[in-house]
């Protein structure tokens, strides 16, 4: 192992992990880092792009500390960032349930869940600050669920044996974001944060090797504007919409991250994309997004397809319904394959198993791309009232969308009652990869930081449920506000910048040229039609099951798609005022580049781990086969000056001190 490490290790990467035992690294860091005194903070400006959990919490906290913050978002209000849609909950190692939880256990579960591809030191710090997050949110007035005794309630989530998830109904992301938004509002009111809504960052401005500002488009006027600052923080979320259909909100995009990448920030592990097993299946080619059905349904729902291919064919033809198939003809394939975890295996395992059945022809809807999630057994055991109490709002949501009520009695065969099952299928949900950052959350460009889903840092190859909210808030409230000071401490003598520099001039011109070019193509195809095609390529060849051949095909097809985009795109209207089509086209150009990056990374990783499954690398039973000997590293990509040229791979070797690397086992 040591030898491979040395071969792959390259001196360029310094992840700045502090010395000392894992449990003391963060304390040591804070004790020795440089700080900025209050009088100097007033002289320093920080741009924070994004108002999701990561961006809003960072902007608010930096404002409280005394920095001047400029905070941007695409939506009409910071409160509408995509984080608002998170349902299930947020993890913390409080051990309020006295079930044996601890910082170490949360750390261990996260590293294991991530299939041993995360950086140990970062994950430990995440687990360490998790408890502060809950304290912070309660103090803000976040109405978490409580027990009758008045104390906080917890639930359990996939991949953990303890109950450590805090929640606010099925709206945890909403309540956490509204908490951060309220702190942000306090700072806006105090004049410490200036909020720019309906603004989209198009580029980052680098002066003498340091990030010093951004070029942003005012989406209402259509005009480009320049903003300068001593440091720039990117908190712009994940790149799931590369696949067109995903559970992400419509405005989620990767353009800010791509702008940083093109300006020299490395992009890490793009191939690690999470596919969530319980989404409502695609219903037609006009669909705009996919709806997530909370993972919590897997606590009581049983996942199945028919045992007989004939039954599957009849289901696909609409001749019979799920409730017509009796118990003994059903194949509860997760319970069959993974007796120990059953329906509660981690997301990547559950998703692949569904795909495997559907690929074999056992899919249960008209497209053959769906499996059943059935509550009959739970309803017969506990009664419909109990089940509705637990999942009523989800049943209603499902019914509103599909017109089928999963709690409705549909059939009785041999004295057994069968209720309408839900249909589910995996969908793109979250991206573990992102802008490469060191321990300080600084990218490979000085003064440019990345936090939240847009960085790669904490989840390795797979993220556990309820850990993204934790990471976003950890980064924004408790990590970045410290680590950024280590950078800013020697910037206090740098006066405020004018935006009338040649660097700003050049950056704005490049952005304007890009927009002019997009407007001037005047071809025949709408942005969405090309984006859909991108989605098909990505899902087909760079989705749940990848092969060398498929990835090579994808790269070829993506090249052709870029050409189509550049020669046959049509955008109506002008650059004056609001032009949605132009804004979508701007994002699509970056999604295509992102698609290629994912494919390059997936092609280079000749192993299966977490969200990355290469069909060539599986066990005889169809389980993922990791290769720690050769792929125990973070895969980073450097831009080579043009979207057309392949990027260069740089490897950051991983070093584990606290945890022994093992094969994940959910069978027994």
């Amino acid at each position, binding site marked *: 192992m040591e030898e491979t490490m040395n071969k792959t290790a390259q001196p360029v990467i310094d992840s700045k992990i502090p010395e000392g035992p894992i449990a003391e690294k963060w304390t040591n860091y804070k004790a020795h880092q440089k700080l900025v005194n209050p009088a100097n903070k007033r002289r320093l400006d920080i741009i924070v792009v994004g108002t999701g959990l990561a961006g809003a*919490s960072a902007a*608010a*906290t930096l404002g*409280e500390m005394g920095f001047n913050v400029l905070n941007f978002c695409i*939506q*009409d*209000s*910071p*409160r*509408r960032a*995509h984080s*608002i*849609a998170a349902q299930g909950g947020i993890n913390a190692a409080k051990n309020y349930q006295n079930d044996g939880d601890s910082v170490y256990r949360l750390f261990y579960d996260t590293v294991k869940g991530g299939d041993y591809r995360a950086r140990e030191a970062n994950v430990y710090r995440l687990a360490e600050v998790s408890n*502060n997050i*809950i*304290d*912070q949110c*309660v*103090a*803000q*007035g976040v*109405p*978490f669920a*409580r027990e*009758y*005794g*008045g*104390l*906080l309630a917890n639930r359990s989530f996939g991949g953990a044996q303890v109950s450590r998830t805090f929640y*606010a*109904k099925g709206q945890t992301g909403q*309540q956490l974001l509204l908490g951060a938004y*309220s*702190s942000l*509002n*306090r700072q806006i*009111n105090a004049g410490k944060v200036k*909020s720019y*809504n309906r603004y989209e960052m198009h580029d980052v401005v680098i002066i003498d090797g340091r990030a010093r500002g951004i070029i942003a488009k005012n989406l209402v006027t259509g005009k480009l504007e320049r903003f300068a600052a001593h440091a720039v923080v990117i908190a712009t979320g994940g790149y799931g919409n590369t696949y067109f259909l995903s559970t992400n909100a*419509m*405005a989620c995009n990767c353009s800010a991250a791509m702008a940083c990448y093109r300006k020299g920030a490395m992009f890490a592990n793009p191939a690690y994309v999470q596919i969530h097993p319980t989404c409502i299946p695609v*219903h*037609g080619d*006009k669909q*705009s997004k996919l*709806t997530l059905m909370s993972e919590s349904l897997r606590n009581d729902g049983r996942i199945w397809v028919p045992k007989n291919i004939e039954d599957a064919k009849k289901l696909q033809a609409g001749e019979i319904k799920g409730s017509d198939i009796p118990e003994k003809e059903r194949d509860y394939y997760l319970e069959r394959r993974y007796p120990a975890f059953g329906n509660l295996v981690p997301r990547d395992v559950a998703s692949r198993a569904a795909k495997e059945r559907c690929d074999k022809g056992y899919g249960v809807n008209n497209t053959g791309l769906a499996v059943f999630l059935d509550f009959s057994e739970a309803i017969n055991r506990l009664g419909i009232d109990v089940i509705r109490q637990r999942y009523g709002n989800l049943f209603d949501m499902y019914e*509103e*969308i599909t*017109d089928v009520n999963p709690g409705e009695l549909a059939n009785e065969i041999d004295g057994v009652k069968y209720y309408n099952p839900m249909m589910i299928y995996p969908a793109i949900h979250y991206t573990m990869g992102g802008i490469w950052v060191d321990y300080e959350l600084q990218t490979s460009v000085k003064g440019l930081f990345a936090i939240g889903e847009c960085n790669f840092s904490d989840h390795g190859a797979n993220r556990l449920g309820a850990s993204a909210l934790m990471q976003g808030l950890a980064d924004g*409230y*408790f990590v970045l506000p410290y680590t950024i000071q280590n950078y800013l401490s020697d910037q206090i003598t740098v006066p405020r910048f004018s935006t009338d520099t040649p660097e700003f001039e050049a950056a704005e011109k490049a952005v304007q040229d890009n927009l002019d070019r997009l407007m001037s193509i005047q071809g025949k195809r*709408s942005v*969405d039609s090309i984006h859909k095609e991108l989605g098909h390529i990505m899902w087909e060849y760079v989705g749940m099951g990848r092969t060398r051949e498929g990835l090579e095909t994808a790269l070829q097809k993506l090249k052709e798609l870029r050409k189509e985009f550049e020669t046959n795109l*049509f955008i*109506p*209207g002008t650059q004056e*005022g*609001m032009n*949605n*089509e132009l804004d979508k086209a701007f994002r699509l150009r970056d999604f295509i580049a992102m698609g290629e990056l994912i494919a390059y990374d997936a092609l280079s990783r000749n192993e299966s781990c977490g969200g990355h499954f290469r069909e060539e690398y599986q066990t005889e039973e169809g389980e993922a086969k990791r290769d720690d000997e050769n792929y125990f590293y973070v895969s980073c990509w450097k831009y080579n000056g043009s979207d057309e040229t392949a990027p260069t791979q740089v490897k950051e070797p991983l070093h584990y001190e606290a945890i022994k690397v093992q094969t994940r086992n959910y069978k027994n």
Partner: protein
Amino acid sequence: MENSISFKLKVWRQKDAKSQGQFVTYDVNDIPTDTSFLEMLDILNEQLVEKGEEPIHFDHDCREGICGMCSLYINGHPHGPATGATTCQLYMRRFHDGDTITVEPWRSAAFPVIKDLMVNRNALDQIQQAGGYVSFNTGGAQDANAIPISKVAADEAMDSASCIGCGACVAACKNGSAMLFVSAKVSQFALLPQGKAEAKKRVKAMLSKMDELGFGNCTNTGACAAECPKNIKLSNIARLNREFICAKCAD
């Protein structure tokens, strides 16, 4: 996909804040009834773009009923005819073949039109900035379980906190009042011990901001609660009034 409908869509088109707007009617054909209302607009927009015309601009993001970005005044109702749902959660099976469907932006003095069906709702943010928070700095919190909060109060605060800030209540109100929106936030904090210390200051600051921004007065007609997609109750307004009177008495 057995069922499809065709209908006329009468849509408000307006180039920008300064231009005059007008209704334009489009024939929309063969829309499967399992399409969402916003997907129907996507389909129409795709057809407009193919013809070289500008698509209809409307606000939307999550398409799951939680972000509060979508708006639309459909057939005389904010968020359309379905109750307890936002526009993005509205499906075409609610409409019939041959219908004429009228779509307008939120109409309120405080929400100027940006383009077509998009309006500027910054005023709602400004009300929150005036006092919709607990004043304390990151890092200074005590243990989360230090103060027990009754489940009843926590659940009730959660119901109030469910407001998505969409502004349908304002659009529904003949006075253009934002009272339901303000009362939801005031109530959330009034119900929790963390919000108590600043309760008096908060209610006064938020209400005076609301007045300043050109929202109308509340005359208790209740149209807001009837149209609110998140079922925010009128009792929140009653609580706000109590809080306000208390605050005034203390002056």
